[in-house]
């Protein structure tokens, strides 16, 4: 009891610190925003797209660093986030264009982006006079050092992601659910798939801060994976995934206040643990829910069966 009280005191002291407040707020906002676009990616069976974009964004970080070095900026990292954003958008659009061509090489193109993104990042950061250690903050996140300016960027970008992802949800759902039908309605399907890719790239850039580029896709996909275990509609899946994203981000980060662990990795571990718990508990809960209407309609089955005979 006294130990719990001690922990609570420790927590309230931490909460009073502006730095903790900023990192909690950033985690909360990103936790809400990332699963929105993740829902569309899961719907389109493009769960790994976020990973591809994340790897490309690393090259962008290094290129931003190179630009910083070339222009003699005092803070070499100043151009890292803009660089990541530009590279992520370019990579996302490239993947989408290759995919839309309908070639079987789309899978290979994604693989090339994965490897090229990481290798390019490491080589370019060397050229810029940095070391792999400089990349670590981007690879695994840096929630502990969120500045007020960082927080503002996070808020603005997340607002954009939510505006597109929620505002256009019927149209984006139509495109993801049945692309051929969506084209027959006259919707600008190509433009909308590219829009999804661009918003995914923005999500990667904004979530990079929280969980790092290597785990960025987990924050977009795992909350959706948990939500769809329980829900039966697209809309409810998205809303629940947003809630789960916020929950795992805040709780994962809070754990690292008490144990010196990497926040990004902790958030993903909490999310996957939640998935495991829900997957185990769900069959127990589901079994009790009655189905609407008869499972098998009364229909003639078009086969003539021999009268059942007793002997064999």
């Amino acid at each position: 009891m006294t130990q719990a009280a001690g922990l609570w005191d420790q927590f309230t002291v931490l909460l009073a610190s502006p730095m903790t407040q900023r990192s909690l707020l950033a985690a909360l906002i990103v936790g809400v925003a990332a699963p929105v676009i993740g829902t569309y990616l899961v719907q389109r069976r493009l769960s790994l797209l976020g990973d591809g974009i994340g790897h490309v964004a690393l090259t962008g970080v290094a290129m931003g660093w190179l630009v910083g070095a070339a222009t003699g900026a005092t803070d070499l990292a100043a151009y890292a986030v803009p660089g990541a954003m530009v590279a992520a958008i370019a990579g996302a659009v490239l993947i989408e264009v290759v995919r839309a061509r309908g070639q079987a090489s789309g899978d290979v193109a994604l693989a090339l982006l994965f490897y090229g993104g990481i290798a390019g990042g490491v080589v370019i950061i060397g050229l810029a006079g940095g070391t792999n250690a400089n990349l670590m903050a981007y690879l695994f996140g840096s929630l502990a050092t969120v500045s007020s300016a960082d927080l503002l960027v996070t808020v603005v970008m997340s607002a954009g992601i939510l505006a597109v992802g929620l505002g256009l949800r019927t149209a984006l759902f139509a495109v993801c659910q049945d692309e051929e039908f969506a084209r027959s309605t006259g919707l600008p399907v190509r433009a909308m798939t590219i829009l999804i890719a661009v918003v995914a790239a923005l999500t990667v850039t904004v979530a990079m801060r929280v969980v790092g580029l290597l785990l960025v896709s987990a924050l977009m996909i795992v909350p959706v994976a948990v939500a769809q275990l329980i829900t039966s509609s697209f809309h409810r899946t998205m809303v629940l995934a947003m809630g789960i994203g916020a929950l795992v981000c805040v709780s994962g980060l809070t754990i690292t206040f008490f144990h010196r662990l990497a926040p990004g990795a902790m958030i993903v571990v909490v999310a996957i643990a939640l998935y495991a718990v829900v997957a185990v508990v769900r069959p127990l809960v589901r079994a009790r829910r009655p189905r609407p209407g008869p499972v098998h309609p009364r229909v003639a089955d078009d086969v003539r069966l021999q009268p059942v005979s007793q002997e064999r």
Partner: protein
Amino acid sequence: MSAVTAANLDVHLGGAQILHDVDVRINVGEVVAVMGANGSGKSTLLKACLGLLPISRGQVHLLGRPLGRAVPWEKIGYVPQRSAQPSGVPATAEEVVRTGLLSRRRWWAGRGGREATASALAQVGLSDRREQPWHELSGGQQQRVAIARALVRRPELLLLDEPMAGVDQPSQEVFASLLGRLKTERLTTVVVLHELGVLRPLIDRAVVIRGGRVVHDGALPPAAPFHDHPDHDHLHPDHGDYDVEPEPHQTTLP
């Protein structure tokens, strides 16, 4: 006015010529079956007319406008053969039908969307399945959801690709009575079919495609032997080739 006009249509897919010089004209208010064996090019013709496949030669006009942005797409309802694979995220029947309200300029279901989807689902006899996940429905029910998604647009031209293939009998009956009702409302309907089956009395004209060419355009062809028994149900999509030679190509239109 003609609802669909395809003139001198050639379509190539993957280097092979699928359609050869196809000429088809469908008048407003007609119910036309496009028939043929598997691989004859009948679905390709439908998709090419909708601009879903590239056309190598010839022109298509829909509702009097050349294929493209000028076509009033909000007046056209399309029912694909198998509407989409089960996707990653569950979606209810109502959510799927609601996407039928969208068009080039309409990106939101908007006001009245709920009533419109409810009435479209009622038309196909699935009011009680509104909240059920689409992937839990039977094949026939999924097909009816796809039809509701096309009807919610209140189309002037309805294009259906094999709506009876692999569909259970209640769904076939619902579909036949629905088509009969739509016919009285003078809705132009083009339906790609293997066999006429229960739809025979509703169809005005048949276009038969063989080897990518129109080989018949006119009266309904008789069913092939063993397919003409009244008890024969066409539940399986993988037969229906014409053993009987259809009448020679008839160029005059009714």
